[in-house]
């Protein structure tokens, strides 16, 4: 059993975990602020839930069943509990890779296997000063009519993340294409995709709040659809397309 606290999206979160893995994962986000926003605790049934969920999803996708070590499954359970609470604080989890350049961030999102990681790497190679805020599961926070993207230690297989909060300028939906081109899309087009990529709580209050937060994105972020291949030019096309729009 391990007890510690972290800061995510400006919130102080107390964690009591069964294994040390969660503590090690969160090492760059540890804090000792006196007051907690909330506290979470995992139990063996949370770990079982993650394993069963993983098996269900593998079956649905026709993939071989994967059995994972309990310490790893506990890290998933902890983030699930955190994500379930975050809408109370105008913050929610969205699947995607958030990359920042200077003082603004861009979120790339897409169905699994489309090439988010590849496109992220191209940005790191091609765009001076680019860095990853979170490569897989960033938190988005709405504050004073603006959206910010927040680093978290839960950042996928590549484990690319940084403990920063950066204003979010645009969200880009990736699609594979033979040639590289980008187009701005309306919020109406983006809304179902945004919901699909947002963490869905089973709790109706939290889900209603998440939907309201997604709706608010329409007023403070721009949306793009990118068709891209794996050539370095793809990063330059998306960077210029999103940076140059007024």
């Amino acid at each position, binding site marked *: 059993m391990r007890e510690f606290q972290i800061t995510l999206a400006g919130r102080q979160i107390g964690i009591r975990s069964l294994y040390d893995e969660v503590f090690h994962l969160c090492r760059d986000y540890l804090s000792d602020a006196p007051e907690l926003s909330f506290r979470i605790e995992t139990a063996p049934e949370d770990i079982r839930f993650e394993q069963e969920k993983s098996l269900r999803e593998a079956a649905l996708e026709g993939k071989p069943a994967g059995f994972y070590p309990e310490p790893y499954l506990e890290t998933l359970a902890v983030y699930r509990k955190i994500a379930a609470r975050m809408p109370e604080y105008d913050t929610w989890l969205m699947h995607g890779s958030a990359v920042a350049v200077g003082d603004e961030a861009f979120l790339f999102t897409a169905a699994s296997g489309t090439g988010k990681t590849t496109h992220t790497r191209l940005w790191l190679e091609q765009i001076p000063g680019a860095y990853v805020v979170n490569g897989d599961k960033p938190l988005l926070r709405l504050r004073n009519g603006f959206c910010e993207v927040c680093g978290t230690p839960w950042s996928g297989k590549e484990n690319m993340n940084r403990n920063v909060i950066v204003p979010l300028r645009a969200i880009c939906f990736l699609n594979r294409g033979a040639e590289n081109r980008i187009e701005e899309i*309306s*919020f*109406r087009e983006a809304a179902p995709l945004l919901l*699909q990529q947002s963490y869905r709580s*089973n709790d*109706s209050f939290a*889900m209603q709040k998440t*939907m309201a937060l997604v709706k608010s994105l*329409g007023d403070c972020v721009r949306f793009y659809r990118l068709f891209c291949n794996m050539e370095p030019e793809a990063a330059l096309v998306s960077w210029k397309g999103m940076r140059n729009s007024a």
Partner: protein
Amino acid sequence: MKLRYEFSVMEMDGEYMAVPVGENAGSFNGMLRMNEVSAEILDLLMEDTTPEAVHRILRERYPDSDDREIGEALTAFLNQLIREGLLIAP
């Protein structure tokens, strides 16, 4: 008839989105996109009801609309819910 799940519904730029919530919501990974009338029907289906009862309520809410059009809209939406396995028949 009744919905298999409870739904959270939100209007977004003129279109209504519905996402399942509750204990077994995870077994339906999709979402529903619909117009305002369908969103009203969805709301009526949160409680156990019948197609006739829903039709009657819609006629009361839209007295200026053609009765046949209301029936067709209702049938189309109920069929969509049945196809997607979201409606429990009586």
